């Protein structure tokens, strides 16, 4: 069994003392999942962990989650006592290569490390196309390896997001924990709640995750016009549009995924989405869910527990930053409900995109979801 303990602070200098407090209880952590606000010096966070010979997997956030609480401008750390031979941490910076190639490289490493790996991955980069990250992994693993994770945040400033380890930090990299699936079970489920509204519209011009026009009108203008949003500042796109009115992207197989715009460009009226929005595809607007959806999420998580993962050593939640804004104080109810399902240590963060699988689906890139990942030593 993995032992997991959470520490939380708003003072990085206290981290060493907090770790010592845990260790003194006869606990010997080897891995730390660190979710922190961008306001902190990341080196100050990772150094004490390195000093204790604990491998850091750090991600900046748009809000931190610990057990049943939601925080802002804080540092949440889950210390895990796992056999170091059962996992490997790797940070691959993107130099010239695309996010697709970068995640392919991670997938290759995963397959080279363990016969049957399972991946937790986090990506930095405000303009990164999460869909490319997912497709890169899939192109190598051919859906035979499960993977979960999300995109780092920066308190909705849309400036710089980071991933970091003891040795490196980067605002343009992919950070992965490769688990040996033979020893550690890692399973996840994602759920949304945002509902489609209005008629179908066509993406008339786009490149990757940048949408220039919808029904031949500048994308930014379309949102502004339809929802009476007035003049939207470029960096407010995520908060004003992304949270409240993400697009439902209809796929050829009849399914749909949510795509939230993160930043805009007033000059050409384009919007940068967290994931690919192909030209020619059909989309619908979405509206925020009712608060009752929180109950549904908890029910779905309970069902997941019942059918997939009855026990948990640790819980990881990657929730969309939109949920925090949309549900306000009620978002804690959702987190609390999830934690109560297993009553295990829970850590997580509010992200700019989630990687997980909707019910009965394969691993994919999402927005506006809460992605739960359950970790259990076999």
């Amino acid at each position, binding site marked *: 069994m993995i032992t997991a303990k959470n520490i939380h602070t708003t003072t990085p200098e206290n981290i060493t003392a907090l770790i010592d407090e845990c260790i003194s209880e006869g606990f010997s952590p080897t891995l730390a999942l660190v979710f922190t606000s961008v306001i902190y010096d990341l080196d100050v966070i990772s150094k004490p962990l390195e000093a204790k010979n604990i491998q850091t997997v750090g991600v900046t956030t748009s809000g931190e989650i610990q057990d049943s609480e939601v925080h802002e401008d804080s540092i949440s750390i889950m210390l895990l006592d796992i056999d170091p031979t059962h996992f490997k941490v790797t940070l691959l910076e993107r130099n010239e290569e695309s996010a697709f190639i970068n995640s392919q490289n991670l997938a290759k490493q995963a397959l080279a490390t363990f016969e049957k790996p399972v991946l937790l991955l986090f990506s930095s980069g405000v303009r990164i196309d999460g869909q490319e990250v997912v497709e890169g992994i899939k192109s190598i693993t051919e859906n035979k390896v499960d993977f979960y994770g999300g995109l780092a945040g920066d308190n909705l400033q849309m400036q710089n997001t980071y991933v970091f380890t003891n040795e490196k930090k980067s605002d343009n990299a992919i950070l992965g924990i490769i688990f040996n699936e033979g020893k550690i079970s890692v399973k996840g489920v994602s759920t949304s709640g945002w509902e489609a509204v209005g008629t179908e519209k066509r993406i008339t011009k786009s490149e990757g995750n940048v949408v220039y026009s919808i029904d031949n009108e500048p994308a930014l203008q379309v949102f502004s016009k339809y929802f009476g949003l007035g003049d939207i500042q470029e960096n407010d796109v995520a908060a004003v549009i992304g949270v409240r009115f993400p697009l439902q992207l209809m796929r050829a197989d009849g399914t749909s995924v949510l795509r939230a715009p993160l930043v805009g460009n007033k000059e050409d009226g384009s919007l940068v989405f967290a994931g690919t929005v192909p030209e020619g595809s059909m989309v619908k607007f979405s509206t925020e869910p009712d608060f009752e959806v929180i109950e549904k999420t908890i029910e779905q998580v309970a069902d997941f527990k019942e059918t997939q993962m009855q026990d948990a050593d640790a819980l990881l939640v990657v929730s969309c930053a939109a949920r925090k804004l949309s549900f*306000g104080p*009620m978002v804690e109810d959702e987190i609390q409900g999830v934690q109560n399902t297993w009553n295990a240590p829970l850590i997580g963060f509010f992200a700019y995109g989630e990687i997980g699988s909707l019910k009965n689906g394969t691993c994919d890139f999402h927005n506006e979801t809460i992605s739960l990942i359950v970790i259990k030593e076999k």
Partner: protein
Amino acid sequence: MQKELQDIIAQIQNSGIPSELQDRWAKQLKHLEKQAERTEFKLNRLGQEKQSLSAFLKESLEVIEEKKANIEQANQELLQANTRLQIAEEELRQNAEELKIINESLELKIAERIKEIERQKAIIEEKNENITSSINYALNIQKVIFPDIREIKSVFKDAFVFFKPRDIVSGDFYWFYQKEHIIILAAIDCTGHGVPGAFMSMIANEFLYQIVHEKRIYTPDRILNTLHRKIRKALKQEQTNHQDGMDMALVKINTKTRKMYFAGAKNPLIYMQEEEMHLIKGDRFPVGGGVKEEERRFALHEIDIEKPTTFYLFSDGYQDQFGGPKGKKFMTPTFRALLHKIHQQPCALQERKLKNIFEVWTKDYEQIDDILVLGLKI
């Protein structure tokens, strides 16, 4: 809100109420404050939602109104187009009506024309019948002038006549005279075929009778010279542009001296002796027509017929016939080779072979001229 709460709690603490009660009230107040905070959030979000959904509905309605207006305009245009179509349809119907009347009138006219044509056809058929009947009768007359093959066979060892007119009556005919040891035989090809040819043959036959029977001119060249003068005179060719005449090959055989004499107007004499083929060409001019000179001197050729001799007189019909796989003429060399090949066979067999080969050759083609081949063995 928090300050207000803290103030209230402070007031409670200062009020002297028992601390147990104070704690309970403080807890209840905090709970109420939390609930108030949540309610406020919900109200704010609902307010925002109301605002944005109103805008969305307004815009959607505008879009729908615009689409409705477009549809109405399109509908109007369709109605107009429909009216135009109805007018066009009416015009078409009227045109069709007119066309029907015209058609009926045309049908009447056609019926009248057909009736007229049938009447004319009947007249033509009747006339044709009369003409054919006349020509058939003319054939009877023409046949009278043709020598009886039995008569010819009686003076030769063996003989055949392959005679195949293109029409009922013929421009080709053969002429025979025998008195004591003198035999005169000619194959004559009068200009044209059918009725005009037959007319010429009657004239030629009459003149040959006058020349040979009455004037007792037996020498071939003199016969042809005399015949030329007579034709010219009879057809007034020195005064007119009348071109008609005849090609012919004529031989005189003196059975006593065993000599054969030949004169030819364009047509040759072919004879075989000791399996060798000999050819004596006729003069290059015809009898009558063509050249306007009054006197025409045909050459006389003498042939020794001490040896068994097979000779052939013929018109140009056989070798000029089109046919065979490539639709070409039979050609003179082929014809001569054929005669050489068959010359030793009995004349009846030779005639049958000439006939069969001709039929095979002309299988898919019409006969273009009268055919006459005389074969004789001395």
